[in-house]
């Protein structure tokens, strides 16, 4: 480990990996530090991603990254009626359930092949700040505390992000906007292969949803996310999940338990500072409706690596210069989707079970030529104008 690099990346998830790869490909010296002993483990994810989204990064997908191809989905309302999105209708919304243990490792592998250095069990414990500019991190590695200096530091340290706090930026997620999640990897359960299932409703998952993401024959990630404000003693994410499993998969076997948090808030007000770029979950860019953040982390990571390269070549790493990163992702398709989905989420979390039933029943016989989350919501709004009068203020997003 050297004491100085062009770019230092804190966190070896998808955001950090893509940032490292892009910066290395542009000829910069890059160091990734990851505090855990292994990349990609433990997995804190349901591992779902859309085909169109992942294809943006790779010409070909390595078969070992993929547990299952997803071709349809079921949305179950509180009264147990079902909106079935058949493979024919799924159109551009097909996707994959990944195996992130392999996927995350290979992303780092690709970054290292492009020239980056990577150190595991290396933890950033503070930022080096000089005259208000970030100049790297204080890192604990191999029993020593050392300074790693860099022209640009990229905070890719995920939902638990502390690095930006060390730099003086408040990254706290409001309690009501943190989805608190628990998930089992289960086997020996009756599921439909290739079909994801989502349950909504106050009884099953207040202000969130419960998911079944198939991983293979009779095997799936079965998980739940509920709002932080709904979580209390005896009614925590794991309690709701256990209740569901007792009812639906009493004979199933659990082979892994994971927990985690997903932010459903607006992104950080600003994702750059002098010498600093913040990406992925650390920037709070996971989708407020679905909680999906793999693509968003990869997209912002790659962009951060590209802009860092540009700025380093120009010799200017000031906040003003790095603002190109912030502006670009906000005006991108992803940035616009985040803004729109946040507003939609704010309306949907307030709905009670009766309203959810009526909404899902209204679309249950709908046949859409081409499905996307946006087209579904557009149809819901069209069919429920009175119920969703708040959404009329969001009309601009659907035109």
């Amino acid at each position: 480990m050297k004491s100085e690099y062009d770019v230092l990346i804190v966190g070896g998830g998808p955001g950090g990996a893509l940032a490292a790869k892009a910066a290395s490909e542009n000829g910069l010296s890059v160091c990734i530090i990851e505090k855990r002993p292994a990349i990609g483990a433990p997995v804190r994810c349901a591992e779902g991603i859309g085909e169109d989204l992942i294809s943006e990064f790779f010409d070909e997908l390595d078969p070992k990254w993929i547990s299952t191809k997803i071709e349809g989905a079921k949305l179950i309302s509180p009264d147990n009626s079902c909106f079935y999105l058949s493979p024919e209708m799924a159109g551009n919304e097909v996707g994959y359930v990944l195996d992130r243990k392999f996927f995350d490792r290979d992303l780092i592998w690709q970054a290292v092949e492009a020239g980056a250095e990577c150190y595991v069990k290396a933890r950033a414990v503070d930022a080096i700040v000089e005259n208000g500019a970030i100049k790297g991190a204080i890192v604990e590695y191999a029993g020593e505390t050392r300074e790693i200096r860099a022209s640009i530091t990229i905070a890719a340290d995920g939902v638990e992000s502390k690095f930006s706090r060390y730099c003086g930026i408040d990254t706290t997620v409001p309690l009501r906007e943190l989805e608190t999640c628990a998930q089992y990897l289960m086997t020996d359960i009756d599921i439909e292969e290739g079909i994801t299932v989502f349950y909504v409703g106050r009884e099953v998952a207040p202000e969130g949803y419960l998911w079944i993401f198939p991983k293979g024959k009779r095997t799936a990630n079965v998980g739940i996310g509920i709002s932080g404000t709904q979580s209390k003693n005896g009614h925590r994410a794991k309690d709701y999940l256990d209740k569901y499993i007792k009812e639906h998969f009493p004979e199933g076997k659990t082979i892994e338990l994971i927990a985690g948090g997903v932010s459903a808030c607006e992104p950080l007000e600003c994702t750059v500072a002098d010498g600093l770029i913040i990406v992925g979950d650390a920037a709070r860019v996971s989708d407020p409706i679905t909680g999906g953040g793999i693509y968003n982390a990869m997209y912002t990571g790659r962009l951060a690596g590209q802009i860092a390269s540009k700025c380093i070549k120009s010799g200017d790493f000031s906040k003003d210069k790095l603002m190109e990163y912030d502006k670009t992702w906000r005006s991108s398709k992803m940035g616009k989707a985040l803004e729109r989905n946040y507003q939609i989420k704010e309306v949907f979390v307030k709905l009670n079970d009766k309203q959810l039933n009526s909404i899902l029943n209204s679309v249950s016989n709908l046949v859409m030529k081409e499905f996307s989350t946006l087209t579904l919501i557009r149809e819901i709004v069209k069919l429920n104008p009175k119920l969703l009068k708040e959404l009329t203020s969001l009309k601009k997003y659907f035109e």
Partner: protein
Amino acid sequence: MIKVRREVCCYCGACISVCPEGALELIDAYLSVENETCKMCNICVRVCPLGALEASDEE
């Protein structure tokens, strides 16, 4: 003070993201609570998906 039930915590970091004081940290797969910084707001206790945190009266 906030007590971590180590046998229950699976080091996911959900509590860290909501602590308004930045009093929680994962160090070598162990969640540590900085008691001097903690304001005992109990937000972390509430948010833990597994119930691994407890507020205790001990000083």
